Each structure stands twice: as C-alpha cells, then as structure tokens.
C-alpha cells in the first residue's frame, strides 16, 4: 500500500536517525546548527504523526496499514500500523525525544566533542524505538527491537574509557539481547500457530479464535517466550538489574531510555498482544504476580538508595512492574473467573478497567522531569547523593522546586495526574477484592509501593530544606563529557572559588544553558494539568486504551474526595505511612540490590563452565583428536552397518576362480604383497626402510589398479608414488634419527583398535562390493560412457540404396574416447579446476613454510637439549648436512642425460593421446616431473638456474591461468563455464585432424603438476644443500 500514509510513517520512523546522521557532516564547532538539525529530525517525526492524525485520522484495521515488501521470502516486510496505540507511543517517543535533544544541549554545554558523538547515537536509538512502536510486521518490529538494544548499548557505555560503564552496557545488551532472542522464538512460534506474520494479524486471529487447530498447543510457549522478551526489556523481576546499571549513561540517555522509550518497549509489547491473548488463562496469572513483585521490590530498593539517579531508576522498575501488573489484571476472566456471568458483574467481567496507557503517559510525565532535574543537580551542584544535597532550595531554587514538583507527582499526591491514576487503580483493586480475597495482597503491595514513593518525596523535600552541615562535599566529577578533553575545564583563572565557579562553572550562561532544567518544567506542567482536569487527558488517551471504553470514568480529584471509600482510605494509609517513613531514620542506609550479582555471577560461571568444557574437549594433544575421530568413525560405521540388513553378510561371488590362472595368480600375488608390506611397516625399525616399504605397498596398489582396468589410475599412482617417496626421503633427512628410547606403551591398544577399524572397513567394502555385483543397481557410469565421445543420437543416419547420404546427428559430447580423461577435463571440470588449485596452494604452502622457518635460525640451544641428546639429535645431522647428495654418481648423470629428453618426449606423447587413450595432462605432467626431479637431484641447483626465468612458481601460475582462461572463455561466447568444444579439421586426402579445446585445459593441468612436483622437490633439495 502506497500513498501519503506510507511517507508519513517513513518520515516518522527514520527522520531522527537521518537528521542526526547528517549532523556528522557539520564541522565540530557548529553546536547550534547541530542541535537545530537534530531537533528538526525529531520535530519532523512528531509532526508527521500529527499530520497523519489530522489528515488521515487514526488508522484502524488492516486498511490503514502501510508498507512495502522487503524480504518476502522470510516474511519480513516493512509495514507500519498507524493505529491509536502505535501513534500514542510514537508521539511519546518523538515528543519526549525533542525535549531530550534540547536537554542534551544544555547538559553538555559547549562540549562539542560530546555532542558530535551524542546526537547521531541518540537519533539512531530514537528511530529504532519509533520502528518498534509503529512496525506491524513482527520481524520488522524485532529488527527495530534489537536496534534499540544495540543503540542503547552504545548510549549506556557512552563513557567508553570507564570499564565499569562498559561492563554495565554489556550487561544491558546481554540481558535485553537474550530477551530479544526469546522474542524471536516467540514470534516464530506465534506465526506458526496463527499463520500470521503481522501483529495486527496475530491479534485478530487470536481474538477471533479461528486458529489452525494443529498448532494450538504452541500458543502458550509462544506467549512464554514473548513474555520473556518483554520482561527483560521492561526490567521485570528478576531481570530488573540491568536498568539501574544503565544509569552509567549520561543523564539525557537515562531520562530518555527510562521514562518514555526503551523500558516501555516491553510494556508496549504486552499492550499490543493484550487484545489477542488476554482471554487465554495464562495471561493474567503470569503478568499480574510478576508485575506486582517487581513493583514492590522496585519501591523498596528506591527507598534504600541514596544516589538520586538510582532512586529514580528503581522507581522506574517499580512503575514498570505496576504497568505489567495492570495488563495482567485487565485480562478478562482473570479477576472474576472464567465462568463468571457477564451480566452479574456488568462491565467488570471483561477485566478491570485500569487505564494502563494513561499510566504510561503519567509515568513519562513525571519520570522524565525527575531524571532531567537529577542530571541538572548532579551537573550544576556537583553532587549526586541525596544526603549531600542539603540546602538545595537556597542554592538552586529553580532546580529544587522542579525536582520537588516532579517528586510530588511521583508520590501520587493530590492535584496531579498520578493521584488520579492511583485512585483509579486502587478503586479497581477494591472492586476485584469482591471477587476474590487474594486481590487484597496486590492491594497491600500497591499501598506499600505508594508508601515508598511518598517517603521518597518527603525525603527529597526535607533534605533540600535542611541547612547544609559540615564541610562541602567534593564535587562529583565523574561525568563523561566533563573529562580532561573538554576545552572549558577546571581552569577558571580564580584562586578562590567564586559564585560562578561553584556552579555552572563549566557551562555557559543564557538561553542554551537554561535547557538543562527547562524541559523538566515543561513536562511536569502536564502532570498538574492532568491532575486538575483528568477528563481533558482522558479525551486524548482514552481512544488508545485497548481494554476499556470507559475513559470518561477516570475519577477527578473532586470525585475522589466527594466519594470517600476504601480506595481513598488506602491512599490515606499510604500517604501517612510514607510521611512517617520519610521522616524516620529507618531505611536510610543504602543497600545493594542482591540481584546485581545475577549477571556477573552468571557471566563468571559460564566462563568457568566454558573453561572446563574447553579443557575437557580441547586437550591440545594430537593423539586425543585422532582417538576421538577414529572412535566416532567406528561408532558411526557400526551403527550404520548394524542398521542396514543388506550389509550384514558380504556376498561372495567366487567368480575369480573361473578365470585364467594368470589372472588368479596376479590377484592373489598382489593381495599377498599388499598385506605383507602393510603388516611389515609397524615392525620395521629403520625409518628409511619403512618409507621404502610404504612405497612398495603403493606399487602393489598400482598393480591392483591395473587389474581393475584403470590404466589412468595406475600411471598416475605410479608417478605420484615415486615423487612422494622421494619427498618423504628428503624430509626424513631433515628430521632427526629416532630419538633416544622412549616408553612405547600403548602399542597393543593401538593395534587392537586399529584391527577393529580395519575389520569394520574391510567388511563394509566387501559387503557393498558384493551387493553392487549381485544387484542390478543404477549407475552413473553409463551416462559418462554414452556422452564421452558424442552425445545422444538426435537423428539416425539416412541410408539410401545402401549408401549413407547423411551421417547420424548427435548431441554435443566430450569428443574423446578415454572416458576417464573426458570426465576429468569436461564433465567434472570443476573438480579438476579445484584440484589443481589445491595442488598449487599446497606447493605455495611448502615454499612459504620453509621460507618462514629456515634451518639456520632454529638451532636448538644447549639449554634446550642435554648434551647427549644434543649430540644424538642435532650435531650428528645438523652439522653434517653436506652438499653431497647421494644420487649424484657419474653413472646416474650419464643415464639422466639420455633419459630426460626421452621422458619429456614420452610425456608429450602421453599428453596428446590422453583424450582417446590412457594418458592426459596429469600423467604427462607426472612423467615429466619425475624425470625433471631426478635430473635436478642428479645435477644439483645449477639445473634450476639454467632454466631461468622459468621457475616452478611461474609454471604453476601459468598453468592455473591457462586452465582458468580456457574455462572462462565460453562465458564470453554465451556458453556455460567450462564448456568445451571439439571438431575435425579436414585435411585433403588423409585422416581429418581432431581438435578439442579441452586440450588447453589439460595443458594447464600439465603445467601445474610439473610446477608443483618439481617445485616441492627442488625446494626440499635447496633446504638440504
């Protein structure tokens, strides 16, 4: 859905972030311009919402939802719902935000560096928050939700050089972030259960009761996870610890996050879900007790705090508990029972009419001023503990007055909106006690909480009134922006502090400076307007209340006083107790919230657990990993074979015994050779002999490849076996002889385990091989055979009168007769391309590693080895690394002079016949490599010098380049990657000449193989020489 509605929403959501980001373009000293641009962003956001209401009205239902698709495949679309609740929250966020921008200007003063960094972060946060309250798509809401977590992390950890602030920011991020994960889980479950991905859709589906039955069981789980998300964000017990910790932020952040925005996101979520979920039996019993406990705990901890910001933070926790509790109590069927007759109780049967949204507004209207003024007091008076603020009325009358007025509202005393709200709440609780006596418990908790709030007010006012005693306290200078890099700092040019040094000494005077307290006065004024004329507010907010249409019943002060009853009595009790407590010396000593230990303790415990697991799993000993992998392999194999009846018994064909004797003999002979050589290896002491036996075993395997009719394999294996053995022998020369005798325990265990694995794998091969032979299974091989030379027949040959008129037409094939080679360079060309890349990387690794650890720099020190060990292990070898390489005899030299050209010619022949007969790039490259490598060993390093500028590395690079070019060329001709072409060039009279582009690819393979093999051997020889 397009149109102006969408643009209004987009402006409302994104204007703060965009405007604030634009301020980064301004030069640093342009403070006023920076403030004005940011203000414009918040103002546009607020204005867009107002315009939306005035021009299009308040949106209800799906028609009003605007947005655009974003990532439809994961059900994420950017849709916004301008319904009353969203618009209310949006206006709260942008409106308070507007004043916070001004406040930040007054708070930071002319500190340009702080403002430069602060406004963009604040704008990011505000946009995220606007997104949360206006988004309709649940995943979009979650995205914005997590953005608030991230941006609040930046804001809380604002003082990034202070480890404590960073720790508290991490605590807030981890707590709300984990809550966000829970919310994601809840959203996914909820979307599965209802089939809806939008909040409006979910609520509509839940309240209509038309749910797909198969997932109905998920709804309680979805609720539980979403509740967890909301409870962590809105600091419900026991997750409330992050909120007071978040006070490490500069005060503008606290005032914004904790009055109107971040912590209200959880409550907003409850408000959103309320219409859909309130009729479920789990809603009320979950929200009401958790909220009530949080409410009372917050109140108590607020009284037991002494730092101004901390007091207000705990009252915030308390208020959030109250709000959650309200949403719980408003659930239908909770208070009066599910089976209650609606007619008997009238409207109340639908749940208590508690005006929670009004309470949200009410809370913002006194909490934002309280934080703002707390910051101002800390900043101007330089003191943050309540007991240090004696005599504030005389020192800073305006600050003390606004603070007292806001605290009066906090206490819920008459003439404020708070009073009205409290009366309404107590009234409804009293109504509820008619249904069940249990609600007296919540009533009592509410009274106790009110008592705490009243006592806080009393303490603040009495402290401000008192005469200062004793020496003036040291100024509180822990404010991040007042640090050393502040250009206007402690140097005032006076020896003795004058009046302007005592306060405001690092702030300028005048218009902007006043904004450090003016926003508080503006906001708190609404408290008293609402207190005198609650109906005026009710007319505005009443539309938003989702749980009642009875907004006009909000009792005015006169109504409450003229209808005395139990609620008024409860209020009176709370006020009396609060005044007494406030004046008494009781509960004056500040205490620490024991919940503060939850996060650090969990963090440490998880780290310890991680260390234990790590030590258990990662021993650092290679053998441990080998045992683990082999054990897993064994278990997996046994489980697989045990579960598959077809693998229980190998099928033995016995076909071999009917073959020619020579075939039988070669099979049996080669098998015997393999078994014997393999079994000899563990028993041979000398490492050189061991490697030679390894090679013998490899040659026997090569023979086996021949018997399996795999000439390409046999040739490749033969050559690689030669090169590998050469490399092995060269490397062994660089390593010490067997070290002095070491305990050799565990050999039997190794042997037994190895035998188990060997038997299992042998059995598996026999079983699968037998199964394949005895069953006519479908194979992939025939397809390669059919397409190797040319593709499938399109049209048969046309034969007229016994003369072929037109040849048969075939689809395009690989153009070669050697199926294995065609498969490698054509059908599975990607494989080969990757393979030569791996070869190149391995060679580069060899070159690089040997360059990094040259032998000369790593001679063991005498202290590292005992003298005997030193002699045994190093001296003997290390010093006598001669220039003489054993192979270099005249006989060999002469032979190699003859062999090399022949071998190279043979390699060329293998290369060209590869497409149709055994051979190809790999084999040709290996033949050439073996010859070159042996030649290099025979004649020493001069060979490589003579070949310059052709080096192995160049060979590798050229080979890779040729292979890649050949593969990529078809792309430019509009064909697929690696597509090959082939054809015939007619030559008059004689046989046509066959060509194939695959030959170029094979040339690349050839060059890489030569480069890698010769390069590695050359490099190792260089090390020895």
């Amino acid at each position: 859905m397009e149109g102006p509605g969408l643009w209004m929403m987009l402006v409302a959501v994104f204007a703060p972030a965009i405007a604030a980001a634009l301020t980064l373009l301004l030069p640093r000293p342009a403070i006023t311009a920076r403030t004005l641009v940011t203000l414009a962003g918040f103002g546009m956001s607020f204005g867009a919402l107002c315009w939306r209401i005035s021009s299009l009205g308040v949106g209800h239902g799906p028609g009003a939802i605007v947005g655009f698709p974003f990532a439809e495949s994961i059900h994420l679309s950017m849709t916004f719902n301008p319904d009353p609740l969203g618009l209310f929250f949006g206006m709260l966020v942008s409106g308070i935000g507007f004043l916070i921008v001004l406040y930040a200007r007054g708070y930071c003063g002319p500190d340009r560096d702080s403002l430069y960094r602060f406004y963009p972060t604040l704008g990011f946060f505000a946009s995220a928050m606007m997104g949360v309250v206006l988004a309709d798509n649940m995943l979009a809401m979650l995205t914005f939700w997590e953005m608030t977590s991230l941006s609040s992390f930046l804001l809380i950890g604002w003082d990034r050089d202070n480890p404590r602030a960073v720790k508290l920011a991490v605590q807030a991020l981890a707590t709300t972030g984990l809550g966000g994960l829970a919310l994601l889980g809840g959203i996914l479950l909820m979307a599965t259960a209802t089939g809806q991905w939008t909040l409006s859709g979910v609520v509509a589906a839940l309240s209509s009761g038309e749910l797909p039955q198969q997932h109905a069981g998920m709804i309680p789980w979805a609720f539980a996870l979403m509740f967890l998300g909301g409870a962590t964000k809105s600091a419900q017990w026991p997750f409330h610890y992050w909120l007071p910790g978040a006070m490490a932020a500069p005060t503008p952040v606290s005032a914004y996050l904790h009055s109107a925005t971040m912590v209200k996101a959880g409550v907003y979520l409850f408000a959103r879900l309320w219409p859909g979920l309130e009729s479920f039996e789990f809603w009320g019993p979950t929200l009401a007790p958790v909220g009530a406990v949080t409410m009372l705990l917050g109140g108590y901890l607020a009284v037991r705090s002494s730092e101004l910001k901390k007091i207000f933070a705990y009252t915030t926790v308390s208020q959030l508990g109250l709000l959650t509790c309200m949403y719980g109590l408003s659930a239908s069927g909770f208070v009066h029972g599910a089976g209650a007759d609606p007619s008997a109780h009238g409207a109340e049967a639908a749940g208590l009419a508690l005006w929670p949204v009004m309470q949200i507004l009410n809370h913002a209207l006194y909490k934002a001023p309280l934080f703002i003024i707390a910051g101002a007091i800390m900043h101007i008076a330089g003191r943050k503990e309540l007991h240090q603020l004696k005599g504030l009325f005389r020192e800073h009358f305006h600050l003390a007055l606004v603070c007292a007025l806001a605290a009066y509202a906090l206490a819920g005393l008459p003439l404020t909106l708070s009073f009205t709200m409290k009366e309404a709440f107590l009234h409804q609780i009293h109504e509820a006690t008619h249904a069940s006596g249990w609600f007296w418990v919540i009533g009592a908790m509410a009274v106790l909480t009110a008592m705490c709030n009243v006592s806080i007010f009393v303490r603040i006012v009495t402290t401000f009134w008192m005469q200062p005693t004793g020496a003036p306290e040291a100024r509180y200078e822990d404010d991040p922006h007042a640090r050393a890099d502040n250009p206007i700092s402690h140097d005032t040019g006076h020896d003795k502090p004058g009046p302007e040094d005592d306060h405001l000494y690092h702030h300028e005077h005048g218009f902007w400076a006043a904004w450090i307290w003016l926003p508080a006065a503006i906001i708190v004024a609404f408290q008293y307007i609402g207190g005198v004329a609650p109906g005026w507010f009710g007319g505005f907010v009443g539309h938003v209340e989702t749980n009642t249409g009875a907004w006009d019943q909000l009792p005015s002060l006169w109504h409450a006083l003229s209808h005395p009853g139990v609620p008024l009595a409860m209020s009176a009790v709370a006020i009396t107790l609060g005044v007494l407590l406030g004046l008494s010396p009781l509960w004056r000593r500040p205490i620490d919230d024991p919940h503060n230990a939850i996060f650090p303790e969990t963090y440490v415990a998880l780290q310890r657990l991680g260390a234990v697991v790590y030590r258990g799993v990662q021993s650092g000993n290679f053998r441990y990993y080998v045992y683990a992998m082999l054990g897993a392999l064994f278990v997996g194999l046994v489980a697989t074979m045990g579960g598959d009846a077809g693998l229980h018994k190998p099928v033995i064909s016995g076909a071999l015994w009917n073959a020619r004797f020579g075939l039988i003999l070669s099979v049996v002979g080669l098998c015997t050779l393999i078994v014997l050589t393999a079994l000899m290896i563990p028993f041979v002491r000398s490492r050189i002999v061991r490697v030679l036996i390894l090679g013998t075993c490899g040659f026997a395997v090569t023979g086996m490849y021949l018997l399996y009719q795999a000439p390409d394999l046999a040739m490749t294996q033969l050559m690689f076996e030669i090169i590998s053995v050469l490399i092995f022998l060269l490397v062994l020369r660089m390593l010490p002889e067997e070290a002095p005798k070491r305990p050799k325990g565990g050999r039997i265990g190794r042997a037994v385990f190895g035998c188990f694995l060997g038997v299992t794998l042998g059995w598996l091969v026999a079983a699968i091989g037998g199964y394949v032979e005895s069953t006519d299974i479908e194979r992939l091989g025939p397809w390669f055979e059919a397409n190797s030379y040319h593709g499938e027949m399109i049209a048969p040959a046309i034969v007229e009168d016994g003369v072929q008129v037109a040849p048969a037409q075939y689809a395009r094939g690989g153009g070669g007769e050697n199926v294995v080679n065609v498969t490698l360079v054509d059908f599975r060309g990607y494989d080969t391309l990757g393979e030569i890349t791996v070869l190149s990387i391995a060679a580069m690794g060899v070159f690089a590693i040997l360059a990094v650890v040259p032998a000369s720099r790593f001679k063991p020190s005498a202290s590292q080895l005992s003298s005997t060990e030193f002699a045994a292990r190093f001296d003997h070898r290390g010093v006598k690394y001669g220039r003489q390489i054993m192979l270099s005899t005249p006989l060999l030299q002469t032979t190699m002079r003859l062999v090399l050209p022949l071998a190279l010619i043979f390699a060329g022949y293998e290369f060209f016949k590869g497409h149709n007969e055994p051979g190809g790039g790999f084999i040709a490259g290996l033949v050439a490599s073996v010859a070159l490598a042996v030649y290099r060993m025979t004649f020493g390093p001069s060979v490589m010098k003579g070949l310059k500028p052709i080096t192995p590395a160049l060979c590798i690079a050229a080979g890779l380049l040729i292979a890649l070019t050949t593969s990529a060329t078809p792309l430019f001709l509009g064909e697929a990657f690696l597509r090959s072409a082939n054809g015939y060039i007619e030559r008059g009279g004689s046989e046509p000449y066959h060509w194939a582009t695959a030959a170029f690819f094979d040339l690349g393979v050839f060059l890489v193989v030569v480069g890698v093999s010769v390069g590695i051997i050359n490099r190792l020889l260089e090390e020895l020489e």
Partner: protein
Amino acid sequence: MTLLVSICIGVIFAVSFYLLMGKELKEVAMGVFLIGHAANLGILAMSGQPLMVVGSLVEPKGPPILGTGRPMVDPLPQALILTAIVIGFAVVAFLLTLLVATYRRTHELWIDDLAAEGNPAFLIDGATERKNAAA
C-alpha cells in the same frame, strides 16, 4: 576378488590407523600416506569386480575407453579416485613440510611432549625466535 581386495583394504586401514595413533609425528605422516591407498582401493572395490562371464570362462572387462568393443568397467569411480590421488599427494607434501617446520621450531616430534604445557610451539609467533636468539 572383491573379498580378497577387501581383506587387503582392511589390513591397510588397520596399519594406517595404527600409525595414525602413533606417538611420533613421522608415524602419523606415514599413516596419512598409507590411508589414501586403502580409501582409493575401497572406492574401486565397492564399484564391483572388473570381471565378466564369457561362456564358461571369466574374463576381465575392458578399461573405460570407447571403441575397444569390450564391456568396460565403470569409469566414474576412476575419475573420482584420480582426483583423490592428486589431492592425497598435495596433503602428504604439505604435511611433511609442516613436520619439518614443527621440528625446526620446537626440536620435538613426540606428540605428548609437543602438547605439554610450556612448549615453545604454543608461544605466540616470534616469541620462539626471540627466546632462541636470547639463549
């Protein structure tokens, strides 16, 4: 034939696992070298034996090359194994170089000693050199 070959494979596997579990790095390298043979041969053996019945006699099938007129063995396992051989070579060459580097840095090839705490191998890069230079 499959049975005989699978016995070979089992033996090679057993020996290579025995070597892999060894206490010295050279043994491990030999195990890696050997295990490739067993795996490759295993893939080949699992594709069936290269024999066919001609009348009363059993003859070997032809290699996977067109135009020979004989029924041929399955070409796909061969193509796969060819790749495996090449990669196996690269792995062994690289592993052996690592062995050289390990020995030069630590003067140690015994796995248990390498894993022991305080071994120079666990020092951050450059620390070993400085230590050696100082000593």
